[in-house]
């Protein structure tokens, strides 16, 4: 599904990613862990096509298709979804209008006509119930005045609505209390299927109790320095990141 080969990237001339290799197959959940500043968020931004970052070497392939040079919207049309660590507030656009615009933009790219209002409403109802989202929430301005938990739930709600093939969750657990964390994890677990894949980016092991990864990778200094199974996450939780720094 996702293949990253020798990926190097810079922001404002500063190298952040220094040769990342990653292979994610359909049906898998990968966790990328690492201390602050290791390049976790940069990796997710680069995959999603953020133009602030320059890819200087290597490539990213989704289902064999090279993503280099593709706009963020084109990547989204291919099935990439990024759950933002800090979702942007957009006063004046309701959650519903936003999701409708996004769904129809994706359908248009696939040559499909707009989703009918009743179908859309049905889907909204189904997914919002799953994430315990109140209908009042849907007519509020996108992320404006949302609590940290509401923002993250809204990200997962968008994921559930857009049904991507590759979902990247960037620090989705930050700012969540345990109840919100369970709801969000439940949303992700319901989404998980044979035909899609999930990459969870996190500092802590906590989220991985609820979204169980098939593989865990440790990022440090812009490189994956260690890979393993979920036990690696436990090890990191117990020992911290210092021993990883010595591996690099």
């Amino acid at each position: 599904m996702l293949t990253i080969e020798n990926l190097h990237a810079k922001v404002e001339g500063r190298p952040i990613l220094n040769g990342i290799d990653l292979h994610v197959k359909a049906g898998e959940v990968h966790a990328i862990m690492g201390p602050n500043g290791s390049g976790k968020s940069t990796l997710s931004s680069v995959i999603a096509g953020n133009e602030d970052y320059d890819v200087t070497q290597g490539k990213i392939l989704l289902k064999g298709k090279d993503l280099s040079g593709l706009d963020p919207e084109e990547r989204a049309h291919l099935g990439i979804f990024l759950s933002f660590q800090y979702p942007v507030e957009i006063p004046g656009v309701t959650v519903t209008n936003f999701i409708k615009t996004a769904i129809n933009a994706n359908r248009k790219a696939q040559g499909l006509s707009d989703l009918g209002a009743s179908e859309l409403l049905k889907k909204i109802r189904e997914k919002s119930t799953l994430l315990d989202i109140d209908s009042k929430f849907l007519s509020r301005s996108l992320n404006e005045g949302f609590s940290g938990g509401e923002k993250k739930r809204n990200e997962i709600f968008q994921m559930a609505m857009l049904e991507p093939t590759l979902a990247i969750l960037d620090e989705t657990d930050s700012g969540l209390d345990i109840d919100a964390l369970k709801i969000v994890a439940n949303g992700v677990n319901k989404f998980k299927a044979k035909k899609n894949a999930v990459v969870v980016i996190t500092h802590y092991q906590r989220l991985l109790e609820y979204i169980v990864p098939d593989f865990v990778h440790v990022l440090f200094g812009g490189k994956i320095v260690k890979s393993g199974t979920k036990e690696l996450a436990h090890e990191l939780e117990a020992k911290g990141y210092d021993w990883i720094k010595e591996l690099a």
Partner: protein
Amino acid sequence: MEFKEKLISSYLAFEEDLDLLDSVHQNRAKALKVFEKKGFPSKKDESWKYTSLRALVNFDYALFPRSEASIELKEVKKYFLYDTDTYKVIFIDGVYSPFLSNTTHDGLDVCLMSAALTKPKYRNLINTYFNKIASLEESLTALNTSYTKEGAFIYIPKKTVAEKPIEIIHFASGKEHSLWLQPRNLIVVDKNSQVQIIERHQSLKDHPVVTNSVTEVYAHEEAFVDYYKLQNDLTSASLIDNTYIQQAKNSHASVHTFSLGGKLVRNNLRYYHTGQHILSTLKGVTILEGRQHVDHSTMVHHSHPNCESHQDYKGIFSERSEGVFNGQILVEKIAQKTNAFQQNNNVLLDDKATVNSKPQLEIYADDVKCSHGCTIGQMDEEALFYLRSRGIPKKEAKALMTYAFANNVLESVKLPSLKKRINGQIARKLGVNLGFEL
């Protein structure tokens, strides 16, 4: 003959034929002298630095329609907010249209300025309110005063809630090759009363029209006045709107100005206070293209303690359009605990579009909260990336962001159908397709 000379000589011919109250005649005569002396404002005047009337007044306009134009209801229905359920005071080429209007004297007066200026039963109201807050010095207001004849007259007595919104609409039929209109409105809202007013000026054909309008609004104690100005005229039409508002204690007066069209628009909006605990709200959305020009000149005069004013103007300018915002806040020494807020945010969508924004704060009191902010910017790139990462193409994402930026001002619009209509107009203008609201 220059247009100014024409205005002065036509006044003399016109004055003879009118049967007005003496006080009105006196006001008109004095005002003409002011206009005669000052003439049209030029760019040398500080408050007209960025807006030139030269091209506009260097033209010969008809001052009165030569014959009465009639308009079919079906031609203009789309300009009404509601078919029914509003009071309507409608003019065609400056002449009252009883056919299109729906006035009342039942519990409140929604009628004509010409009636108020001539009938004895309104003498007291006219003597108390007419030309009392409109500027005696400003030349365009004086010009309007000297030609005062017709417009809307609204009187809401004490403890009365106007059940229906009032629409004041001026149509220009296009029957005259060009037209200079000078409507005069007087609105008096007595203690504990409420009213909602919608005003628009609309040309039906592509002919040069200039409207120099003056409105005086009095909000008495505990009164609520919501005034909505819809400026979405053809690009052959220009508007100079002079609105003066006086508020008594505990009153709330809001003016929302939606400038989405027209050739040149100048909004002079002035607020005066006579008591404490007043709230004054001034909001505007301006979305222009082509060579359109809109100038908002606002002034809130805080002369009493414990009052609040909120100004929030947003502008979106594309192509070669021009925006001007000149927002004045004056806080007198006695006006302690004033809370005055002013915000002017602009987005330029093209290199050739311009905006001049000038906040003017004069504060003589020491215990006040006054803030102002002005931004002239491009798109927020981070927000743009967020939208694009959801599959929304760049162009649509930009349009959606622009729409969101403007739409935010609509939150304080209290009439749902007006809100919906303007929301739709903004979306259409920016190329955003919004299907439905949940």
